[in-house]
């Protein structure tokens, strides 16, 4: 059985997008980790132990502690979006696993409605870009487009979940086929095709966009350094060479 042109395009698109995302992120992460942090610059008060730093980072990642201190509106919208996105992504694991993991089944109903959190959060963030003069001033075209892209992904997904169901069994076969290098036909539903194309596009631009804030946070010296400069000598390789000069 021959595969349709649309299937070939989508299969190729997802292979390329996955490759770009993986290689791009690995490249960035390796680059960040190889770049030295020559000075101790944690924003203090900072933890004095490694485990304290893990706790600090966990609070940043899970509850956006610094953002909470900064601005409650951005925090509410930002957290709704990210936590909604997390649930939605986890729910989507059901299209990539057979049998479906039990905990993915448990969060399925939450994941469906989390899409509302996600889209409401993004609409709030988008509204701020128009309404708050300070945020409007700093916004670039890509800042708006990124939100529009994510909202479009969310809305097309919600349409399929709540309004016009797509052939989810065939879709799962398509993705399982991609994973086992046995390409199966992609369903021809236009909303699904739009949804998938936008997701592939998002994967493509992830490593070259501000979405790098995700790995970046873990490498931020002001957040991930232990506050112990008097107790242990912190020195970068390029700086240690200076010790020999005098």
């Amino acid at each position, binding site marked *: 059985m021959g595969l349709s042109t649309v299937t070939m395009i989508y299969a190729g698109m997802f292979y390329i997008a996955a490759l770009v995302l993986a290689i791009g992120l690995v490249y*960035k992460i390796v680059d960040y980790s190889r770049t030295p942090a020559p000075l101790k610059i944690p924003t203090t008060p900072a933890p004095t132990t490694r485990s304290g730093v893990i706790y600090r980072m966990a609070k940043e990642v899970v509850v956006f502690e610094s953002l909470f201190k900064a601005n409650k509106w951005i925090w509410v919208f*930002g957290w709704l979006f990210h936590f909604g996105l997390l649930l939605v992504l986890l729910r989507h694991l059901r299209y990539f696993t057979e049998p479906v993991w039990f905990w993915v089944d448990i969060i399925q109903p939450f994941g469906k409605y989390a899409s509302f959190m996600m889209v409401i959060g993004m609409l709030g963030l988008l509204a701020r870009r128009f309404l*708050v003069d*300070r945020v409007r001033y700093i916004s670039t075209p*890509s800042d708006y487009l990124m939100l529009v892209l994510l909202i479009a992904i969310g809305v097309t997904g919600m349409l399929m979940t709540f309004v016009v169901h797509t052939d989810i069994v065939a879709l799962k076969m398509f993705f399982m086929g991609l994973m086992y290098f046995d390409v199966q036909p992609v369903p021809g539903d236009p909303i699904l095709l739009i949804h998938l194309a936008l997701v592939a596009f998002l994967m493509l631009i992830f490593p070259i*966009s501000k979405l790098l*804030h995700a790995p970046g946070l873990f490498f931020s010296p002001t957040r991930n350094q232990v506050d112990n400069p008097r107790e242990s000598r912190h*020195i970068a390789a390029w700086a240690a060479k200076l010790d020999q000069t005098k």
Partner: protein
Amino acid sequence: MAAPVFDVPEIKDEIEIPKLREGVMAHVKTFPATQPIQDFMGYPHELPEDWKERAIDKMGDLLGKYRSLKVFLDACVHCGACTDKCHYYLGTSDPKNMPVARQDLMRQVYRRYFTTAGKLFPKLVGAKDLTQDILGDWYNYYHQCSECRRCSVYCPYGIDTAEITMAGREILNHVGMGQKYSNEILGKVQKIGNNLGLPGPALEDTLEGLEEDIEADTGVAVKLPLDVKGAEVLLVTPSADFFSEPHVESLIGYAKVFHAAGISWTLSTHASEAGNFGLFNGNYDTMRKVAMRIRDSAIELGVKRIVVGECGHAWRVAYSFWNTLTGLGYGGNDPFSIEFQKQLDPNYPQPQHICELTNDLIKSGKIRVDPSLNDDLVVTYHDSCNVARASRMGTEPGGQFAIPRELIRSVVNNFHDMADGTIGEATFCCGGGGGILTDDLLEVRVKGALPRATALNNVVKEHKVNFMAMICAICKAQFTKVLPKYGFDMSMVGGVHQLVSKAIKLDKAE
């Protein structure tokens, strides 16, 4: 040049977030460094022909050496959390004084030359070719940042605009656009030993004069020793402490503490400056050279402890960087630091802040104080930015807030903190830190002090506060100059050890 004319902002009941007014601070240009100053620092003094290549090369060099710069330039999502956090934005309403916009002055260039998106779609992601106009913007607005790190507290990724300002100034230096104030000071400290350019004999005279004053005042022969080999403690303090008011009152305070506790101590001519303006310019090598004076003096004098006087950025460099730069601290496992660390007394933190030292002495009963001698004062405390957000005192996180307050409360009876959100980690910079304590930036300094002046005004009205204590030479110089513009008396400003000095009992404890 005539004094710049500008309106002093009006203090409101609360700190207000202004509507942005584009370009209102674009006219403020700090004086450029002259040829002799730049020559000494090894920088060009005018824009070289290949300025663009030099600037981009330097940016690439810094991106390879500093993870902070690389991550911070990538990670920003323009969320806006920092937009209302900078005292210069709050005081000037110029949008380029919003932390993210200040960063974007460099980020637009970074994106154009170092990122795929910026090379392919510059308009889309706000990437721009480096032009002389952009360099001009850098020069203006990287000298309207005091590197106070308040924005870094609130950024969800911990982006610290100070790191970008420092890199920006370093790049500017490499294309001949140095700042007169900071670079001149960096020359003086390396040639003479302190930022004020005070030579050894003058320092000796000053200290003798102070000894006479103290004896006349108290009847006790309190000494201010200089270059004494074999002393236990080397005190490194900002040179302003030697003859600026109110700084000198704190110096007298330190001397009385050492005297009352019976600790042998000395100052050093070669290291007669705790300040290290190398921090402000993002040049590791310069900062290290300036810091090495302390190590060299400590080794030469054979001291066992190094104590740092009241200076904010100096304490950041001392606490956070001295171990890295010079091996002054603990835990070194290389010959360079082991050799030095053997000399230091392991019973004390190295380096130690004067507030840690004095507070410990009072708590352990080794010196006695009478807080009622400060009963004419109602005191508040200004957390200096570099102490608050870039260092620590004591063993617990937040000791940099607790210890100075504990010390103040032990020497005064009337103390009131300013409002939450203006102290501790959220403290507002005095407006003069980070290399902008110069008269050519007076407008920036006055306007940048508005948030602090507002918070101060509220405790003055509510609690009749008449003294704002602090532990930073720049804060003291800045506030005595700018607070009078807001109607406060400059005698309200003083050091924590000025209070200690008044309350301390100079006769030996039992």
